[in-house]
Structures are given as structure tokens and as C-alpha cells.
């Protein structure tokens, strides 16, 4: 990047961010936000403009300056919706070097997330990354390091820990957090996530084992699409809207929904800085390439808290959260008498930064950032390993390795296909 352009950009940022450590409680408009003319808006570049990337066009607060995709059709289709001056790329490395891009959105399949996000951080960009955060635990560790090393602002694209109705619970997470923090349900807690508590595991994201090689369509740079993952003969079911069914790129419904469902639970249980010490599975044998279904996944934390993923909708009587002193059901129905009244009296949790654009301007850590995002993604990734191996595993949250299982520990890092490195 030419230095002059870069400095210009920096100068602009300097003028915008009046105060760099934001105060969590302060009303937004006070910090000088919201009155900037549109020409001074932040700009974003979106890598991956397939189905997921379309949603990233809509996220407010920054203007789309550039888009990137390895499928020319995606690129053209998206560019047609955008102003003429939006730049298009087939290689993300060109997009992240644009001086006018402040924020890089990573909306590719998961096997690309870590590399693109890390390179964006190295290029001095802030990052808005799709879930699941990374394909492996090792990638997550590395990405956390890089984001920190470069002092970037990172957000993961799930949001239930701070807004929206939390699926089957029919209420947002905040009141649940207040109830748990008050100790009303006692401790340790057991959380059940499955059809009976209103969470769908989307088992239609399963892979096929009978793929016959097909010619790569002209519009797709399949080699780039595969990126760091091993070469496998092309079949349309591997890519685009069905890639979730393959371990090389994701992990079925667990990969798709796991972090949406589990991130708020890590937050609720106060586990943002740690991980379970074991994952137990009950599942049919998995194919080496295609992700399949499972019946039950059970996580246990050092303090005895448990999360049950019920893939069979078997837990018909399960509360969403159960503690020794009470149970909590969807809609905040509870065995605790007069819960609503008690809830109103409880203190609000310390507010978090939940506006990404504001976080970027004030250099504040986002509520769901690289480190708690990595920890909640670790739940997804450790279960994926247990499913593939077909055995339950013990985990050391401190060193983030499996205990007494070399095979599982080898799967923490999957060596990448060159020239891709992290």
C-alpha cells in the first residue's frame, strides 16, 4: 500500500476516535457518533459473497467498498446490486490491502476463516467473522494470537449473548444471565440444548459418501475454494450451499448451529475464559469425509456444570437449565416461585460493547471477540474430533490439548495445503 494513502486513512481514524477506551455505560451519541457525514463512513470489504455474504452486505454502519469471491457468478451477481465503484476481487489478499477498507468481513466457508481473518489483522484491518470461528482448535489459538499481536478489533457473527430471542428459550439471554448469576438455581448447572428445549440440530447438513468426480464449472476457482484443505475431486455437493456436510470444511449441523447455540451458554455459565474438561458422545460411526448425525453430546466443566446436546429430541422433560435449587424452562417458566418479580429486582450485568462500528471507532473490545469466540468455538471443534474418532475425550482447558489421547491431540492442528499457512 502506498504510504501516503495509508497515512491519510490513519489521519482520518485519528480524527474520528476522540477517545480510545470507551466507557461501557455511556450513551452512544456522546462519543461523537452518528453525526458524521456519509462520506466519512467506515468502509468494509466482504470476502465470500455466497449466501452468507449477502447478509453481510446489509449489516449497517459501514459502506461496502469491495467484494471478493472465488466464484465469478457470485461476484457478478453481488456486484450488480452494488454501486459501480465497488471493487471486485477473486483473491482476498488484494482486497485486504486496499487502503480504503477498514473492516474485513469473512463470510467464506469455515476452512478459510482463520487464514483470511489473520491476514486481515496483519494488514491492519478490523474483522467481522462468520461462525463457526475456525475449523480447528489450533487455528483458533493462532488467530487469537494474531489479532492481539496487531491490536485489532474482532467480532464473531453470532449475537445471541447480547441480543435477540435465544431460540427455543423465547426470551433474550440477558434475563437468564441475571437469574443464573443471582445463584437462584444453585450450582453446578445443567443446560440441555435440543429439539425439546427449542433448538434444532439441522441434521440435513450431512455429507454424501458416493460422490463421483465431476468437471469443475468454469466460473469456480476450485483450487482456491479448497485453499488449505487437501485436494479432493470436485463434486458440486462439496461446495457452496452443501459444504457443511464435509469435515474438511465444516462439521454438519453442529458446525452450522453449534456456536449460535453454545456461545450464549458459555457466557451464561461464566466460562468465557475456559473450556470443558471432557466431551462424551453417543453417535453412529462417522465417515472419514462426510459428516453424519449423532444422538447425544455431553460436555462437562471442571466445576461440574454440564451441557447436553440432545440430537434425538429425547429429553422430553428436560429443563433448559437445571440447578440443584430450581429449573428454568422456555419462556422463563420456572420452578422458582415468583421468578418474574425476583428477576426485576436483580442487578443488570455490566454492559458490554455490542455495536461493532462503535467498537471499531473507539478501539473497544467487542462483546463477542476473538478470545471468548475461540472458546465457544472450541466446544464445536472438540465435539467434531470426538465424533470423528468415535470416542469420548478428556481436555485440558489450560494447555488446550486432549489428555492421554495422541490421536485427538494430532487433530487440534490440521497441517495446511501450501501455499496456505496461518
Amino acid at each position: 500500500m502506498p504510504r501516503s494513502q495509508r497515512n491519510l486513512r490513519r489521519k482520518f481514524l485519528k480524527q474520528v476516535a476522540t477517545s480510545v477506551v470507551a466507557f461501557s455505560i455511556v450513551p452512544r451519541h456522546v462519543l461523537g457518533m452518528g453525526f458524521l457525514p456519509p462520506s466519512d463512513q467506515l468502509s468494509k470489504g466482504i470476502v465470500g459473497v455466497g449466501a452468507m455474504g449477502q447478509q453481510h452486505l446489509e449489516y449497517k454502519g459501514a459502506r461496502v467498498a469491495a467484494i471478493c469471491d472465488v466464484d465469478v457468478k457470485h461476484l457478478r451477481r453481488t456486484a450488480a446490486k452494488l454501486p459501480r465503484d465497488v471493487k471486485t476481487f477473486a483473491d482476498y489478499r488484494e482486497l485486504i490491502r486496499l487502503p480504503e477498507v477498514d473492516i474485513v468481513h469473512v463470510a467464506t466457508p469455515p476452512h478459510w476463516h482463520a487464514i483470511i481473518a489473520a491476514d486481515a489483522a496483519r494488514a491492519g484491518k478490523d474483522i467481522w467473522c462468520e461462525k463457526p470461528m475456525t475449523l480447528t482448535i489450533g487455528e483458533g489459538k493462532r488467530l487469537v494470537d494474531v489479532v492481539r499481536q496487531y491490536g485489532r478489533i474482532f467480532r464473531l457473527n453470532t449475537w445471541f449473548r447480547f441480543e435477540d430471542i435465544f431460540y427455543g428459550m423465547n426470551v433474550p439471554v440477558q434475563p437468564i444471565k441475571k437469574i443464573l448469576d443471582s445463584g437462584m438455581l444453585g450450582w453446578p448447572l445443567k443446560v440441555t440444548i435440543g429439539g425439546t428445549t427449542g433448538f434444532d440440530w439441522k441434521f440435513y447438513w450431512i455429507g454424501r459418501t458416493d460422490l463421483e468426480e465431476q468437471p469443475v464449472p468454469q466460473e469456480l476457482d476450485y483450487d482456491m475454494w479448497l485453499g488449505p484443505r487437501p485436494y479432493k475431486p470436485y463434486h458440486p455437493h462439496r461446495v457452496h450451499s452443501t459444504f457443511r456436510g464435509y469435515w474438511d470444511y465444516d462439521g454438519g449441523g453442529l458446525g452450522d448451529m453449534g456456536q449460535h447455540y453454545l456461545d450464549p451458554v458459555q457466557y451464561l455459565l461464566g466460562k468465557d475464559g475456559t473450556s470443558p474438561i471432557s466431551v462424551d458422545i453417543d453417535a453412529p460411526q462417522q465417515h472419514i469425509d462426510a459428516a453424519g448425525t449423532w444422538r447425544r453430546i455431553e460436555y462437562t466443566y471442571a466445576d461440574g456444570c454440564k451441557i447436553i446436546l440432545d440430537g434425538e429430541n429425547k429429553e422430553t422433560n428436560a429443563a433448559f437449565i437445571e440447578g440443584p435449587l430450581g429449573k428454568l424452562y422456555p419462556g422463563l417458566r420456572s420452578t422458582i416461585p415468583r421468578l418474574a418479580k425476583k428477576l426485576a429486582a436483580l442487578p443488570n450485568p455490566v454492559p458490554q460493547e455490542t455495536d461493532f462500528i462503535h467498537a471499531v471507532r473507539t478501539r473497544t473490545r467487542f462483546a463477542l471477540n476473538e478470545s471468548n469466540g475461540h472458546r465457544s468455538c472450541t466446544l464445536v471443534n472438540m465435539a467434531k474430533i470426538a465424533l470423528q474418532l468415535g470416542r469420548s475425550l478428556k481436555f485440558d482447558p489450560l494447555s488446550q490439548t486432549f489428555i492421554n489421547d495422541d490421536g485427538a491431540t494430532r487433530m487440534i492442528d490440521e497441517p495446511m495445503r501450501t501455499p496456505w499457512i496461518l
Partner: protein
Amino acid sequence: MTYTTLTLMKTVVLALVFVTAVHAVVAQAEDDRRTGATRISELLSEIPASNGAEWEKHIAVISKLGEASLTDMISTLSGYGKKDNTQLEYVLGGLSYYVSQLSSDQLRELAVGSYIKALEHVQRSEERAFIIRQLAIIGAPEAVPHIAKYCGDEQLCGAVARAMVSIGSPEASAALLMSLDESQGTCREAIIAALGDLQYKPAVKALTSLAGSTDQNLEKIVLYSLSNIGDPSSLDVLMAAARKANYQYDVTNATASLIQYARCLMESGNQKMTLKIAKELLEREEVDPKIAGLNLIVALKGQKSFPWLLKAAESASPEYRSVALNHAVEWRDKKYVKRWVRRVNVGQIRDRAAVVAMLGQMKTEAALPTIYELLNDDDQTIRLASIDAAWRIAGVDAIPLLLKRMNIGTDDDMTAVKAILLQMHFDTLESRVRPVLSSIPPNAKAALIDVLREKTSRHNYVGNQDRTFKPFVLSDKEVAEGFRILFDGTDLDEWMGNTDGYIIKEGTILLDPERGCCNLYTKDQFSDFEFRFEFRLSPGGNNGVGIRTPPHGDAAYVGMEIQILDNGADIYKDLREYQYHGSVYGIIPAKRGFLKPVGEWNYQQIIAKGSRIKVILNGEVIVDGDVIEASKNGTLDGRPHPGIQNTTGHIAFLYHSTPIQFRDIRIKEL
């Protein structure tokens, strides 16, 4: 016998034994193969296992196969799309994963041995790649020489290099280095990256000679590997490459590699060189390398890097400043706090508000006097930062000063303090805030009332079920006076008894007499109170409000009943006046004529203080009397009313055979 003869004889005997043994082995193997083939086809038909126990049974079958049979089975693999390998892939993948847990075991040896043999039998690269992948999953060092020979094969070298990384033995590294010289193109890239992942020091010399390439991908991988290995001799190469990239991101990732290199050096205890790199980065004009340099210095020198933080806090770049302040939060020693505080006090810092916020996050009492003072600063941003910091450090002890701030502050000050008050428990608010309610100006009062309302009214968390009505909320005045809600339209949490007959409908409590019998009681008991509610009668409707009643019995006698009645209805034309709407049933009669027409909502207040009962209907006092006084000479209905002596009890909606609706129910204890 000469020595030679003896040796010869021994050799002959040995040879004979050997031949016999080979015969036996070959025959055994043939046998195994025959039974093996049957077992295998059975196995394949039962795959995939539906659970772990079933899989253990399959494993038992596999472990009884000889190496020859297993090798045969593996060798039937056929390239993707050539035939459906599904069952076979299930078995082999399952086997590899199964034995990957074990470092030594008979089954593991069987699997590894068979894979190695099969590697020679299969014909195509795809099958070989599959087998190499299995050996990587198992992490089999014995496979190293057998897979190393594919290091130069375009189709397989990537898989081999990655497998070597997974295997991770010194032999794996050595084998990669051996093939580096001969390799080219993508194979060379794969081998270089693997040597880096393996952090193989003996490779440094060869890798260094490859640096400086114009092929950006190759250059990237060479720098990556050198940085991972972290040998002191690589400094010049990595530094030069980063300089060439102007310490910015480019495709070679040179700057990132230099930083990674510095971290490796630091881990190996080479402080001097790490510091050298960090300083080089810090001296850059651009922000990104500066930030990385500062982070390195902090990681290296810990709290000794404080002067760097102070300097960074003066930077013109908010990004750089924020990184420094984020580190500073962790260092809570008084001597550091003092220096920040001094800078804030004399205004000798670029962003005072940010430093105040940092001190707040530090939660250090030493900063408190300064922060209290800054609550009155002229600068709005500083005030807001101070409000937050004061609360973080002093907690509820900061409340009096924050409330004072609210009295004289701007709307923004007020919003900030409000946000803090919401972080308190209602009980703390009651004891710390309500007492000052009467003595503060209207603006602040309104804000406080907002907070109290949020802390006392129920949240409407019923989801999407019924959004046609809005839950009832108290008026500002009622919040200030201390009313609380008993029913806001969403739930019967405050009520007990006949919750079958009394149901929630469109935000109201509706008595549907068909559904179930008897009274609905508050869970709490009340002695002196003002009770406010709205009700809607059906034609000829009859009900009553029980007060100070036990949760059973006829409330009119065991407690008291305030009559609710459509006393305009024809059927009630012969009523006695102590039965009129609003009467304390049987004791004090009410004024008639203030009910709204049937179907409209009426608003009623019932005030009970000692023995004095006052009922106000639609703004009109219809009862105001003393129940003891009124029954001094006997009650109006001539029956004993022991309930008038009660000092406390539940409030109840009574049961009659006509429907009735209630809403917006709230109470204040006197």
C-alpha cells in the same frame, strides 16, 4: 569336527527349519486370507456401526484378520468416483481413528503394517493419498521411509509432507530435509512448510539459501518456516524481508514472519534479539508494526516496559494508544497509578478520558480522589468516563456523589448514572436511593423513577405469544409513591388458589366460572394498603374483593369483602344497601350510582388503614368508614364478622357464577 563343518551343519539345519517355517507361514496366510475374505465381506455389510459397542465388535473381528487379509482389504480401495468405497472408507477410517489413541498395541501394528504394504499394492495416487492420510491419523513413525519416497510426486507430496508433520518424529523431519534438494514447485513448498511446522533446526541452512525468491508464495513459505524454527542465524534474512515489505502486509507475509520469529526467540530465551526486533518495529512510522512492536516489548519486559506505555499513550494514533492503555489496565501497582493520575491532573496526556476509563477498569482506589473531582469537569466526555470509573472503583459508596452529579448534570450525565443504578439490586436501590427521592430536582427524580420502575415491574418475557396488548406499567407518580404491580397482564405469578377458573385473557384476569371453582388469592399478605385495580362486569355480574382474609373460607366473614356487583341489574333490585357495589359486605354500605355501564371498565381504589376502610370508585368516594365502629352495635347483616379484627391477610377475588374481568392491579403498603 572342524569349526567349518560345524558351521556348515548349523547352516543346513537352520535352513531346513527356515524352509519349514516359511511353508507353515505361507499356508497359514492362505488360510487366513480365505477366512479373512469371508469375515471382511461380513464386516463390510454391517458397517457403519450404530454405536461404540457395535464398533468394538467390529474391531474384534478386524484384530483377528491377519496382515495379509487386511492388506488385501485395503488394496481393494479404488479411486474416488471409480467405485463406491463408502463401506471400506468407514472401516478403514474407523480403524485408523481407533488405533490413533494408542502409541503401541498389536492392532495398531497390524493396521500400520497393512497400510504400508497396501501402499505398494494400490495403483492410483488417490488411493495412495488415502492410505497416507490414514498413516497420518495414526501418527505412525514406522511409515516414514515408506511414504518419504513420494516426496517428489506432484500428486502425493502435499499429503506426504502433511503426514510427516502429523507423525512428528525426528526421522520424519530428516526425511523431508533429505528430499528438499531434489524437490520443485508445489512439492518444494509443501516440504518447506512442513519443515517449518516441525521446527526442524537442521533445515535452517537449506531454507536460508532459498530465501529472497521472486516467487512470492515460495518466499512466504520460506520466511514462515524460518520464523517458526526461530534460529538466531535467520535474523538478517527475516529483517531484510520485512524491510523490503516496508513492514506492511504483503503476500510474502514478511512482517508477520519477523514478528513470529521474535516470539520464537523470546520463548527460547533470546531476549537481546527479541528486543532488537521490537525496537526496530517501534521506530516505524506506520501504526501496525508499532503496535506489534509494543506488544512484543510488553511480552518481553513485563512491567519494565512502563515507560514505553507512557510514551505510547501520547501517540497521535488512537489505535496505538488503546493498545498501550489496554496493557496498562493490568498493572495496578501504586507507583504506576500515581503517574497516570498525575498526568490526568495536569492535563498532560493526549486523551484524559481514555486514561480515566482505564483507571476505572483497573479498579484502583488510589485514583478515586481524582476521579471524584473529575465528576465536575467541564468536559462532558471526561465526566462520563469519571462516572463510570467511580462506580467501577467505589461501587455503592459512589452513589451519593453520583446522585449529586445527577442533580446538576446534563441529560448525558443522567443517562450514565441511570445505567449504573440499573446495575444495582432493587434492595440496594431502596435503601440508598429512595430516601433521597423527595429532595432532588424534577429531572433527576424522573430518571430515578424510571430506574425504580424497571426494577419493580415485571419484564414481559412471554415471547411472541400475545403482543396484542401492552403490559401494564406504573405511572411515574405511582413508582415514586412505592406502588408495585400484582398483575400486569402477563402472568399470575403473584396469585394462588383458583388459577383454573381465573385465567389470563388479552392482558386481563378473567373468571370463567365453568373452568374451576373458588377464590383467587394474592401470595403475599397485606395489612394496611392502598389497592388499585380496574374491573369489568358482565350483565348481572357478582364478585367481591376479599381483604385481610386467610386463604380459605368465606372472605366476607373470615376476612372482609368489598362487594363487586352490577347492582343496576334487574335481578338485584331488592338488594339491601350493605350489599351494594363497594360495600364492606354486611358492615358498611356504599353510595350507589357511580358504576359505569356494564361492559365498560371501572377504576377502583380500596384503602385499608387500621380499621378504617375507604373505597373510591371511578374517582368518587363511595365508602369511608371504620369497621369496628360500624359493628359496635351489631353488624348490618346480623351475622358475626370475626374477620374485621384481622390485622393482616391476603387479598382475594372471590368466586361467583358470573364472569368478571380484572386488570392493571397494583398495591402500595402503607
